[in-house]
């Protein structure tokens, strides 16, 4: 049975993919050092344990369009079995845990083998998170504009005192954003469940990626984790997208749904499924930024949250100033970058169509041949 469990709860958009891929790359070394990081569930390779989280009955979303709506319950059993069979510390990493209510988190914990749990949250500057979250929202086929999206969460922040708003969000299953990104509330939830909690402050994107690994390693506090960050390919898989690209994707979904296409029809447009060539890119494009009123609000909330964090019984790793970075202002989108992004995205949809039509032609030809053959035989 595992001697201890390190539970990385994310939340999402806080460098989780990078850390999980680093852990996956380092998993053989970790095993040799006596630490388990599960990279295979139900015979399928995984780099995180989000699917196991949503495999817990009752935690699965009821939205039929949600990508985690049909997760096999056996996945959580497989994770629990592997952790239970391991003799030593185990690391579980799932950014979905950060957005769970207390009741949901308790339910998840109840599935884990009985062992001391150490919770680690990665926390990132709030203005950066909201922009990154909007990008992900667009990649997940939603059509809110950045302004609408930001305003939606500004309204939900409420003026209630901290403990009251935490209670309110803990009862509202749609308050995932603030449950995840109002860090004092997130960390209190886990401390109140009786677990020791560490918070790793995500460094600025200008700093080397290895800095996040170093801070995470300090939080995990297990010698088996290599001091140098593992060399991870595809670490930028969730790297920031240009505003131009996001706007094109958003409008594509908007117009496609207007035409009557369903989210199921548009699955190929989700996230990373586009096969886009990037080697001929000349324009980096502009980055999304917050409008002045949102800048003022999110920077103020970031300061308030930082003050509250200082009062919590947690182990904070990394300078708190990293949470107080000024918000990015909007830049003017560039026509050349917009055209390039449009060209790349549209071409990437044309090529499958060409291939599809060729494949279709071949299939039709084979069908015709089969029909002729049947006639000849009969």
């Amino acid at each position: 049975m595992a001697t201890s469990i390190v539970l990385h709860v994310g939340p999402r958009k806080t460098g989780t993919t990078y850390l999980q891929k680093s852990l996956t790359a380092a998993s053989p070394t970790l095993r040799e050092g006596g630490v388990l990081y599960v990279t295979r569930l139900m015979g399928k390779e995984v780099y995180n344990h989000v699917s196991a989280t949503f495999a817990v009955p009752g935690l699965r979303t009821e939205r039929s369009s949600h990508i985690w709506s049909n997760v096999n319950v056996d996945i959580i059993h497989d994770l629990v079995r592997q952790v239970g069979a391991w003799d030593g510390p185990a690391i579980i990493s799932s950014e979905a845990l950060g957005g769970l209510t207390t009741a949901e988190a308790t339910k998840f914990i109840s599935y884990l083998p009985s062992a001391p749990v150490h919770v680690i949250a990665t926390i990132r500057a709030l203005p950066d998170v909201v922009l990154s979250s909007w990008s992900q929202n667009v990649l997940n086929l939603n059509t809110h504009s950045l302004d609408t999206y930001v305003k939606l969460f500004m309204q939900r922040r409420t003026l209630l005192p901290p403990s009251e708003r935490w209670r309110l969000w803990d009862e509202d299953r749609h308050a995932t954003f603030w449950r995840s990104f109002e860090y004092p509330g997130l960390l209190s939830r886990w401390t109140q469940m009786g677990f020791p909690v560490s918070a790793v402050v995500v460094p600025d994107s200008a700093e080397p990626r290895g800095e996040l690994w170093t801070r995470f390693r300090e939080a995990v506090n297990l010698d088996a984790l290599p001091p140098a960050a593992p060399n991870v390919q595809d670490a930028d898989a969730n790297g920031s997208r240009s505003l131009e690209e996001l706007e094109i994707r958003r409008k594509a979904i908007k117009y496609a749904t207007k035409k009557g296409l369903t989210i199921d029809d548009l699955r190929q447009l989700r996230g990373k499924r586009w096969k886009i060539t990037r080697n001929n890119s000349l324009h980096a494009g502009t980055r999304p930024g917050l409008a002045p009123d949102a800048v003022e609000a999110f920077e103020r909330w970031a300061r308030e949250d930082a003050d509250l964090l200082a009062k919590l019984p947690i182990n904070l790793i990394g300078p708190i100033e990293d949470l107080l970075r000024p918000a990015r202002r909007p830049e003017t989108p560039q026509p050349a970058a917009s055209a390039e992004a449009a060209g790349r995205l549209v071409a990437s949809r044309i090529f499958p169509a060409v291939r599809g039509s060729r494949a279709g032609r071949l299939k039709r030809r084979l069908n015709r041949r089969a029909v002729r053959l049947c006639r000849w035989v009969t």
Partner: protein
Amino acid sequence: MTRRLHLHIGPRKSGTTFLQQALVSNKRALRAEGLMYPMPGRSRRQRLRGTPRMHNHEKVLLAACSAEASPATEWLERALAVTSGDIILSGEAVAACTPAELDHLTAYLGAGELHVIITVRSLEAVIPSSWQQHIRNGRTASLEAFVEGIARRNDQRQEAPLTWAAEPSQDFWLSNDHAALAERWIARGARVSLVTVPAGSAPAATLWQRFLGALGLSNDDIEAFTVPSMHPIHVGLTAPEALTLREIVWQLECGGMERSERRRWAVRLVEDVFYQRTKRGPALHLTGTGLHRARQWAADDSAQLAILVEDGQVALHGDLADLTPSEIVMEINQAQLAHQITDLGGRCIAYLEGARS
């Protein structure tokens, strides 16, 4: 009385499609004035395949330029032999013919009065219009590179003033050095009329009226004629459309797609997506060095044409000032342009997904 042959030679991007459609839709009124606009019929196979009716004589005239007998030249010979009254033929590619090709063509057209009508449009408008056509044809040069290419060919012809017109690669200047074009036809005994394409937002009817004037019809006669609407006549791409399409075509080329297939996709997107929008964005126009160069070329061309007009060698229908518009080119708002491009990109993807499902 000798039969007159009115030969409209374009050049391209000077309202030719509009005029050809106007000629077709006014065939009866023209016949009443003793003017024939004969069109080759479609074969049974073409009809079955849905090949659209032709509105011009481009293929026929180009076949005659090559001096090789073909069904097209046979049709031309027959049409010239059997048609009574004056004949109008229209083919914009003729403007780009080399002198040797013109010799073949004039030999085919035979005796009789040859009246050549050249529709002339400001180079400031022709260049962006040619460029967007270049993109629609599946090519990928940027507007700046396209203008640079025209400038390079202009330098080449300045270096070889006696022989440049024999170079088929000089098709842009063969068509758009309007004074030299008029002189080539005058040298072959043709009477030449210039019809200037009205600048800016003048109604399309003005061009049609000027063209009818060049055909020798008076204002009273013109009343019987109708003006076709600009749709579905192909209209040029706007600035956001051209920029978007160029990048799409460029990416398709990077992906190894043949030009003919790129062209098919370009046409499909233009017709099924771009033209379906009500607000299509600001017009495409030249800026900076490109605009400066085009204005300089246009001023030189206009000055040469003025001499021909003054000398009575060329009849003018319209105003030479149309060739050198002095309008201040409005800067396009970059943020709005970017917004329109992202919107177009989104529409194209939605269209492709819709077509797939």
